């Protein structure tokens, strides 16, 4: 079945991320409309790693579990799928800095002028995980990050955070800042992106997801909203239970 998207991948060079992929068109007389969504989201399905190597993924899952550790009430970053999220993001436009301004010259400016590195997130993670791996093995008798004990892992991360460790080719603290941004995004974004599996992040805080109608609840002050969260993929109750 043709949808609009398949027509126009080639034309999408300048329009990465815009929601209408129609050619320049002349609009008159009617509001334009055609069936099917303009650009429905890609839904991440479980499967083999698409960006990370197996070793990178193992390390990344361990990192995710330190940034958001598991506890009796809520899973940690690993089980919540933060690494799956990140794997698909880095494979996609986020990873390649698609849509960003990537012309040179690349000059490092002030903090207020924003990031100026030509490094893409994909490159940052490759080099960051490589640097982490190298550091851990050199300082822990050949053990990679995932093989360390939890408190040792925390120790390494704290050192990176404090700027006490240098990685080859990248700023280690920049890598850590990216982790602190990306891993929680994997924990709290809609499960269609691969993380927040079973909406565990949303359940933890009581965020109801994509529910669009709260009119009955605006005036109910200081009362906890009781309904379970729902994602773009729905929730279990959407499928009839077989009796």
């Amino acid at each position, binding site marked *: 079945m043709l949808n609009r998207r398949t027509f126009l991948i080639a034309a999408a060079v300048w329009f990465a991320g815009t929601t209408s992929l129609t050619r320049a068109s002349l609009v008159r007389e009617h509001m334009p409309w055609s069936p*099917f*969504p303009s650009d429905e989201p890609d839904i991440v399905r479980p499967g083999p790693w698409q960006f990370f190597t197996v070793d990178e993924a193992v390390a990344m899952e361990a990192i995710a579990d330190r940034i958001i550790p598991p506890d009796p009430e809520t899973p940690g970053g690993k089980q919540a799928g933060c690494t799956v999220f990140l794997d698909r993001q880095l494979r996609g436009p986020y990873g390649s800095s698609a849509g960003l301004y990537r012309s040179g010259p690349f000059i490092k400016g002030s903090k207020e002028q924003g990031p100026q590195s030509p490094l893409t997130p994909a490159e940052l993670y490759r080099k960051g995980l490589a640097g982490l791996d190298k550091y851990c093995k050199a300082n822990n008798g050949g053990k990679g990050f995932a093989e360390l004990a939890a408190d040792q892992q925390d120790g390494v991360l704290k050192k990176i955070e404090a700027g006490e460790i240098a990685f080859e080719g990248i700023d280690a603290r920049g890598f850590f800042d990216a982790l602190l941004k990306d891993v929680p995004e994997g924990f709290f974004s809609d499960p269609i992106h691969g993380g927040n599996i079973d909406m565990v992040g949303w359940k933890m805080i009581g965020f109801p997801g994509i529910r*669009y109608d709260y009119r009955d609840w605006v005036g109910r002050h200081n009362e906890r909203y009781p309904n379970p969260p729902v994602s*773009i*993929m*729905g929730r279990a109750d*959407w499928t*009839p*239970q077989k*009796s």
Partner: protein
Amino acid sequence: MGNARTIAIALAALCASSRVCESAGPQDFSAVEHGRYLAIAADCGSCHTNPDSHQPFAGGRPIETPFGFLVAPNITPDRETGIGAWTDEEFDAAVRQGRSRDGARLYPAMPFPYFTHMSRQDVADIRAYLNTIEPVHNPVTVNRLPFPLSLRDSMIAWDALYFTPGEFRADPSKSATWNRGAYLVQGPGHCGACHTPKTLLGGDKSSTALQGYTLQGWTAPDITGGQGSLHGWSVEDIVVYLRTGHNQHAAAAGLMSEVVDLSTSRLTDEDLKAIAVYLKDVSGPAPETASAADPAVLTAGGAIFQDLCAACHQRDGTGVPYMFPDLAQAATVSAKDPTTVLRVILQGAQSVATEQEPTGPAMPAFGWQLDDAQIAALATYVRNHFGKGASPVSEGDVRKARAALAARTN
């Protein structure tokens, strides 16, 4: 709207039953104006004008029938490729008897079984109007349907079964308004061409007139007033719907969008009222009572409805007047055939925009988001809960609907 036009419309109304008007010459303005109005009521343009071509009546538009596609001919006055060389008698024979110029019989995609109810004068006036249209040189190859319908003689049998020629006869026991409405619905409006159930051979099942039919991937619902879907609509509701494409209960979408846009929104208020009065009086079956639907399915459908649909249709399905249909009052929801319900959920639908109701809200598509079991549950819930217990929809129904839509061109 200028004075002359108002007078002409008034004249047209007077001439409706066609017994009052005198025979008009080709230069007679009132005949042309009457013909123009009748051509709108008969919606000639929806078949004979290719959309967005800006060439009225030049033909070439493919018309989908259950038996295959037919191409509508060019009815501009072009002598070579249009009907410019036809005599008035030949034109009349085509419209009211289904006979082509060479004597062959037309397929009833040209709704001559309905147009036969118009008078000779009516059709002469339409001809007078068409003669004023810009002639367009557009050769249209009028095609044949597949064998055995390729044999024009096959139409002899069909006509014998389903074609009763004859002008409209008023019912003296009914009001003038009712009769005007009956004339419009049975005659130029040819509402039954979409809304009346058909036999396997494509003829009307006249005993169940206007009780609904599915064509071109859309279900034209039961529009009988007595006990059918429009039971809850007032005469004014029907009038507003036909005039603007929207009323407090529902919105015209799909094939009906075009009918509203090109035809009913341009009829006089009196005529719309007449149509409404007539429809409210056509008897039809009472809606199905609550049918057996699996409670687990209903629960799932209800969950989807509250999560996804309530944002527009409201928690109780009553919608927003003139914007989002009231699911309990929208005729298509409770139609026996769930084709429209499934189509709208799967691929969305744009409601019609008219002069008086220009908003044209559209329903988004959910086919990408919900699987077959979920859509079946949702459709079952909506039809059961709001649609007066209309029949459930199965996963298999949804699978077939998806496949059918994928193959569609419209």
